[in-house]
């Protein structure tokens, strides 16, 4: 079942900046849609409004064809997995999972059968009688999933589901979630600030910033064709370089990049280039669109090397090279290298008059 929100707006403090402003998007049926953004971007508030835990000031929420903007939480039939798990600490794992069925007064036999199925689905068959406090974080999170799935929800809403876990468990659970989704095909909305999570898991990404939607698209679109300067900077931890428009190109120090068409001469330009998109070469004065950078720092991190460069403009640039690539380049601290910013995304500020 698809989820459509239209013009969703929420203000917590009267007169303050809206936490969410005019959010409109559709989460397609059977897909994972990710709301991605830094903390305070309003993504969790959107999720809570879809769940019905927060009332929208304006706008509508539809589940399939059903307008449920005014529907109370308990009648929406949404499964929610909360950031801090929110398991019932006084109930065993089994009773936690059974909760949604017990309050619906389903027959005992049916509840027992369903709980066993779900325990198997989340691979916790042996731990059904434990209390939540006796489980690891990852196990607790899987109980939270089972509990949400028990009510056969129309959609699954996940609020930073892996936020409190250490990085190894996060990656494991990510794979597990992808598998779970292949089995259930539930329409899923995932809130996260972790772009790797968003790019790996979802079919659609909604990037949010300061309560507004910046871009909606597939993970590849978001990564390859950022629609706004914010998305360009946020995705892939891009370097930011500033310059001006000169003869229809972005002039960044000695670099001239892009074809900006009718952009007014002299407007401010921002260029975003990801650490892995910069190409370095040993000094070769004939190559176009290149200039020299001073190698300030070299940090080896496992299989790649982080190169800290200072450009002639004084701006700093972080570049990541594969180990083999770095060895082929063979530079050391204090050397000058040719910098190719060919992959940079360029945004002219205030161009959209």
């Amino acid at each position, binding site marked *: 079942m698809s989820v459509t929100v239209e013009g969703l707006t929420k203000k917590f403090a009267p007169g303050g900046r809206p936490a969410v402003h005019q959010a409109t998007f559709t989460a397609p049926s059977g897909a994972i849609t990710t709301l991605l953004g830094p903390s305070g971007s309003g993504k969790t508030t959107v999720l809570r409004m879809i769940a019905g835990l927060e009332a929208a000031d304006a706008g509508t929420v539809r589940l399939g064809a059903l307008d449920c903007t005014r529907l109370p939480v*308990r009648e929406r*039939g949404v499964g929610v997995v*909360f950031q801090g798990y*929110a398991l019932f600490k006084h109930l065993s794992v089994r009773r936690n999972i059974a909760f949604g069925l017990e309050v619906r007064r389903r027959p005992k036999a049916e509840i027992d059968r369903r709980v066993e199925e779900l325990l198997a689905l989340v691979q916790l068959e042996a731990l059904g009688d434990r209390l939540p406090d006796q489980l690891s974080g990852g196990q607790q999170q899987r109980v939270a999933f089972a509990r949400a799935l*028990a*009510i056969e929800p129309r959609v699954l809403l996940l609020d930073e589901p892996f936020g409190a876990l250490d990085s190894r468990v996060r990656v494991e659970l990510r794979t597990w979630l992808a598998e779970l989704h292949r089995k259930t095909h539930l329409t899923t909305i995932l809130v996260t600030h972790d772009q790797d999570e968003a790019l790996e898991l979802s079919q659609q990404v909604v990037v949010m910033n300061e309560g507004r939607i910046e871009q909606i698209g597939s993970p590849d679109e978001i990564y390859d064709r950022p629609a706004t300067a914010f998305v360009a900077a946020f995705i892939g931890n891009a370097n930011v370089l500033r310059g001006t428009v000169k003869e229809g190109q972005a002039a960044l120090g000695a670099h001239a990049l892009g074809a900006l068409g009718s952009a007014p001469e002299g407007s401010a330009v921002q260029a975003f280039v990801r650490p892995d998109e910069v190409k370095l070469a040993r000094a070769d004065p004939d190559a176009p669109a290149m200039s020299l950078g001073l190698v300030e720092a070299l940090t080896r991190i496992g299989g790649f090397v982080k190169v800290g460069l200072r450009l002639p403009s004084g701006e700093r640039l972080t570049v990541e090279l594969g180990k083999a690539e770095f060895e082929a380049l063979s530079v050391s601290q204090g050397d000058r290298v040719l910098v190719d910013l060919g992959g940079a995304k360029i945004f002219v500020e205030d161009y959209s008059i």
Partner: protein
Amino acid sequence: MSATGSDAIREPALVRYSAIAVAIAFLGLSVVVPLASVLVQAFGQGAGRFLAALREPETWAAIRLTLLTAAISVPLNTAFGVAAAWLIARYDFRGKGVLTTLIDLPFSISPVIAGLIFVLLFGRQGLFGPLLEAHDVQIIFAVPGIVLATTFVTLPFVAREVLPLMQSQGSNEEEAALTLGASGWQVFFRVTLPKIRFGLVTGVILCNARAMGEFGAVSVVSGHVRGLTNTMPLQVEILYNEYNLVGAFSVASLLTLLAMVTLVAKKLLERSKAVRR
């Protein structure tokens, strides 16, 4: 780290033992000796005299009245305390600060004043006095007044125990229950109540102890009608003033016993909570 602390923060043996000795001596003089003397006075002339003293009709009436008062006040304050704590912890509304302060008021007011308030309201010369008299309803110098005064004095206990618990626990679990389809009452009985149960029971125990032991406020509204409006603490005073020492200390020891049962119950509760963690 053990419960007694690390070596680094431990004092020299001499300091430790003399500090412990001082504490025990002080506790012995101020608590153990008086408590023991109550029991000695009560049982000094044999258990038979003790039981006979409790079987005095007026004393027996005082015991019943005390139980009745507690049986009304404690449930009232439990319901009110939980409701008020729920309201304050979960919602933002105008006057929230005022309500929170008002809940504490009975703690800060002298019990005698608390009693006087009700005399001024419902006494013959009071605000509602003529109205009550016209309908032949007696509140002051009667059981309703005693219940009212006791309820007033013990009002904060449950709310004060439950409120910080609710505030620190937040409402994530309640939200989860709602998304799973629980109704408001189901959320309360299946999620909120179990979450606050230890604080709630502690609050009820303390509330009950105070309800049974309250002297000042009840003394003002009771009128000391023997066999009718005397609670146990008032009965103790009357018997004592009449030099009926065995009687006075018998009732007193009963009250003391109640206090000790209360404390032991509270302690057991805390221990079972610690085990669960």
